[in-house]
């Protein structure tokens, strides 16, 4: 079967719409993952053993099971107990929860990397726990984490096609519906690949820049 450029231009607007949803899902998912990750990281440091163990196990479980099945779970099982979510919301929650367990590890490493002396100095200056976190620990812990966090957000971007399985009309789903309508697979699916490759390559450039800008801090 021949590659047909006219067909490519014909389906381009539909695919661009899909790209918008893909990017929207990635952005919302990233925000949620950043928040969930911080929550998990803080809960695991909690002096309350019950809380830290439970959260630790839950995170381990989410990290060890496929995102697709979790999406199905959120989309198909939750309505049984009365929580009916629109597909995009269910997708964003799935992405955010799944990647939150990964970003939690980034936060943990970042917080552990703040030298002990900083904690002791905060105590010596008579800062409260809240003041220690907001003024001493977090400002020093965040910048070195940024490249690693961005890395996971790029990974999440590449997982968004899974949302098509729960009927979110993102890039992959648009391509599939176009392909099924005209029975031409070669252009839509190749274009989806091309879109992903181009956006990922750009994000890699951005990541390199982030690494140079934030990767190392002077001590």
């Amino acid at each position: 079967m021949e590659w047909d450029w006219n067909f490519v231009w014909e389906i381009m607007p539909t695919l661009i719409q899909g790209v918008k949803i893909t990017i929207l899902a990635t952005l919302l998912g990233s925000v949620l993952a950043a928040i969930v990750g911080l929550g998990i990281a803080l809960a695991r440091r909690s002096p309350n053993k019950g809380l830290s163990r439970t959260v630790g196990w839950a995170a381990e479980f989410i990290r060890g099971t496929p995102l697709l099945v979790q999406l199905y779970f959120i989309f198909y099982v939750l309505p049984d107990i009365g929580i009916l979510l629109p597909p995009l919301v269910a997708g964003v929650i799935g992405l955010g929860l799944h990647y939150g367990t990964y970003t939690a590890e980034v936060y943990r490493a970042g917080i552990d990397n703040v030298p002990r002396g900083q904690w002791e100095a905060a105590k010596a200056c008579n800062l409260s726990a809240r003041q220690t976190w907001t003024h001493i620990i977090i400002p020093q812990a965040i910048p070195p984490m940024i490249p690693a966090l961005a890395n996971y957000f790029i990974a999440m971007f590449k997982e968004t096609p899974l949302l098509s399985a729960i009927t979110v009309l993102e890039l992959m789903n648009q391509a599939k519906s176009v392909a099924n309508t005209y029975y031409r697979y070669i252009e839509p699916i190749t274009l989806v690949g091309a879109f992903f490759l181009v956006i990922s390559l750009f994000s890699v450039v951005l990541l390199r820049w982030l690494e140079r800008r934030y990767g190392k801090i002077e001590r």
Partner: protein
Amino acid sequence: MTQWSGYFGLILQGALVTIELTLMGSVLALIMAFLAGMGRVSRFFALRWLATAYIEFFRGTSIFVQLFWAYFVLPFIGISLTPLQAGVLALGLNVGAYAAEVVRGAIQSIGREQYEACIALNLGRWQGMRHIILPQALLVMLPTFGNNAIELLKATAVVSLISLTDLTFQAQVVRAQTGNTLVPFTTILIIYFILALLISWGVRSLERRMARGLDGVRA
């Protein structure tokens, strides 16, 4: 009362397909990882370039798109694959690209003095790699390979979308037949988690065995 035992048998059949896919995908990924990883550190420009192109392409596009490409687009250019073949091909090539970077990183993490010692002992490039560098690098790679294998296991859920009867697919079948969503999805989540635990346990014991006798040699 529904016949849960029959449905459970269905899910177990799916588990076998998932395990089969994971094993075959891992073997392909391992082969690709060493080919491309060693290609990245080759002294020939063409090989380095080829390996980089492979790695960037497969890491830059989503596994989902690659799978659909292998299954729906390749037939149009004359290569018809069964769902299992397409699944193994896409999973192996995708995870192989990630693992190739692990191979490269591990080879480059071996100290300069080891390379100098190879030269001093008049070993050829291949001899040095085979007898000195790789045995040490393998131990560095192992833990990350374990993570990659778990990623591969989780990625196998995607093949259910190209009609391969793996765990996720069978869970959907059970859901369609019984109308119950909670039981099948919870069951397969637990099975996936157990499989992931098995992998990480296996890799850890392999690592212990390989590290035997290397105490004091490792930095």
